[in-house]
């Protein structure tokens, strides 16, 4: 890793107008969360006896997990396959994954009826349940992500934990912990990196198996025995686009290094995986003969066509063009299309394609559900912003006039200024 690409805390003020907007987006969601815990799910959501899962499962959990796939895909590329050119993007991807997975149990606490019993799967094992497998993998992987992230914290604070006020009694203990972690983790990190990749493959595919328990309810356009494989491949395909998406957005508001050459290289893998995914999707339609549902002019057929055309064909064609792959804007647009495609796919499998017998009302998210989902998303972006400000996650941009690296490497306490 060259000196130019070294990650460091960013010497930028935290409370910018954009960050204040994020905080403003969190407030209404918080109010609805309180309402949910006082009045029950029925007080806030549009869930019904025939629509037991809404956007809190489909977006906050199922889509969130897919969009956090950048963590394991970049880890595999940089650390397992040894492509060191991608080292710089592993840290932001790891941070996104860590935040994404941290918010899965938070979203679940809001969604499940007996939130105080959320720990039950850890003792009441039910090995036939796909949900149990997914839950176990997510719990373990979240902890793996924390371990993978620990060296970044240690790098920054091992010589100076300075907690304010009464918390300062912990300074010595925490500093010791970080020093030990810094010394030992390096040698055993390969165990966790490999575990992270394997666990991700397990639960990303497991999420696809979830709806296989409802063969008579999930529309035939999506119900296929290869749904787990499709979920896994699409998660791998959306990993790098998420890295591109974040990097482009982050560099628009933060003084960080322009990574377009690295992102261009990354997009070649995405081109490959979105291609494999497209072939599997089309092949599945042909093998099962479900192409005949494509033009039934229902909400389902329309949604499926949008998913395929916007999320698979269009980005595949775009990324096939070298000019698009080399341009920052082209990369960003292609990444957005793939992300939108995966979001729509998860929504389709969990909501649009789910048709319950005897349903008298359809499901449409309530204002409260939308507000909470918006708040959780804003909270993730807010925490991302906080952590990249104070921790060495992103490589700061080197000013063209100066040669001193110290200018952009903040010293403790600088970031608040």
């Amino acid at each position, binding site marked *: 890793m060259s000196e130019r690409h070294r990650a460091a805390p960013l010497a930028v003020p935290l409370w910018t107008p954009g960050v204040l907007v994020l905080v403003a987006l969190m407030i209404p969601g918080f109010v609805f969360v309180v309402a949910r815990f006082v009045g029950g799910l029925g007080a806030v959501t549009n869930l019904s006896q025939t629509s037991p899962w809404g956007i809190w499962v489909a977006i906050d959990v199922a889509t969130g997990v897919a969009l956090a796939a950048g963590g394991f895909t970049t880890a595999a590329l940089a650390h397992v*396959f040894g492509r060191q050119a991608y080292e710089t993007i592993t840290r932001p991807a790891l941070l996104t994954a860590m935040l994404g997975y941290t918010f899965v149990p938070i979203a679940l606490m809001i969604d499940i009826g007996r939130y105080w019993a959320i720990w039950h799967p850890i003792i*009441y094992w039910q090995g036939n*349940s796909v949900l149990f497998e997914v839950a176990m993998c997510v719990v373990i992987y979240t902890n793996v992500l924390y371990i993978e992230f620990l060296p970044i914290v240690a790098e920054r604070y091992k010589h100076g934990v300075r907690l304010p006020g009464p918390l300062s009694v912990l300074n010595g203990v925490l500093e010791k912990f970080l020093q030990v972690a810094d010394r030992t983790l390096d040698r055993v990190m390969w165990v966790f990196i*490999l575990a992270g990749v*394997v666990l991700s493959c397990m639960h990303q595919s497991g999420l696809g198996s979830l709806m296989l*328990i409802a*063969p008579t309810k999930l529309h035939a356009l999506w119900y296929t025995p290869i749904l787990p494989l499709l979920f896994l491949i699409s998660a791998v395909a959306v990993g790098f686009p998420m890295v591109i998406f974040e990097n482009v957005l982050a560099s628009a508001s933060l003084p960080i290094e322009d990574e377009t050459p690295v992102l261009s290289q990354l997009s070649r893998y995405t081109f490959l995986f979105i291609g494999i995914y497209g072939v599997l999707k089309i092949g599945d339609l042909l093998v099962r003969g479900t192409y005949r549902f494509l033009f039934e002019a229902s909400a389902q057929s329309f949604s499926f066509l949008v998913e395929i055309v916007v999320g698979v064909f269009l980005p595949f064609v775009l990324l096939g063009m070298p000019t698009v792959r080399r341009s920052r804007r082209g990369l960003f647009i292609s990444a957005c299309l793939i992300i939108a495609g995966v979001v729509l796919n998860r929504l389709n499998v969990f909501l649009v394609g*789910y048709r319950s017998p005897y349903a008298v009302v359809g499901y449409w998210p309530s204002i409260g559900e939308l507000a909470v989902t918006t708040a959780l998303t804003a909270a993730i972006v807010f925490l991302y912003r906080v952590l990249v400000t104070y921790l060495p996650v992103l490589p700061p941009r080197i000013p063209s006039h100066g040669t001193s690296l110290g200018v952009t490497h903040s010293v403790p306490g600088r970031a608040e200024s």
Partner: protein
Amino acid sequence: MNRRTFLTWAATGVASAAVAPSSAWPGVSRRVPDDPYGCLVDLTRCVGCRKCEQACNTVNNLPAPSVPFDDMLVFDSQRRPTPQSFTVVNRYHTGKVDDRNRLVPTYVKVQCMHCQDPACVSACIVGALTKRDNGAVHYDESKCIGCRYCMIACPFQIPQYEYNDPITPRVRKCTFCFERISQPGGVPGCAAICPVEAITFGKRNVLLALAAQRIEAEPARYIPHIYGASEVGGTSWLYISGEPFEKLGFLTLPHRPIPQTTESIQHGIFAYFWAPLTLYGLLGAIMYGTHRRQKQEQQTSEDKGDGP
């Protein structure tokens, strides 16, 4: 079982259910009770008196309904079980008329079917739902976390949820009067009260034979189908009817158990953790290889004197 009865069974599609469905799927650890109880509902006998609804309400200590049980106006709309009522009776007019040219109603009792291989039990993340030896699909609220995956899984759309309870919402459905049938001689509330013997409680195998006998004895009265004999691999509640089931609000469902797809995939991948462990080993080998190569390259470049 004599030969003629057997032929009727075969004709009604029971034969496929008589073969234990799990045996065809090696590696799937499924335990279907050998000799469960069941209920046979004879729709040609039901007169729509709603006594079963009332008995269910009493036995399970459910709140009083908004419309009293003797008000027959409820039949004007189709109902489904709710968190406060585990069973409902609906009225259907299939177009059949009697000798005075009046439409003949058919009444259909709806409740949990207590599947032999229930999708809800397979789906439940904590095992709060279990299939008991006596045939009941039993719900244990002390384990439940309220994820509502059972509601996604149930092909009959039976589990109901208490959405307005903020602390201890429960999944609600027919219990098969689990406590009562666990006692010797115990009978579910609805079956015990039925004044026209439209509901017969007993061992499922006996009920299947009884249903086949009734169909065989009066072929003009019944259509040759025992609903629940093989639907989704068989259910503890069985129905015989004089009208086609699809005209009476019954769903046309596959005859293989619902959990087979997920369980064969899951158990195939996770048997002895062979797949995750293989992947771990493979990635580990790749990681080891790339790191050794990089070290060597570093070594060579240092030897040449142009190291970093």
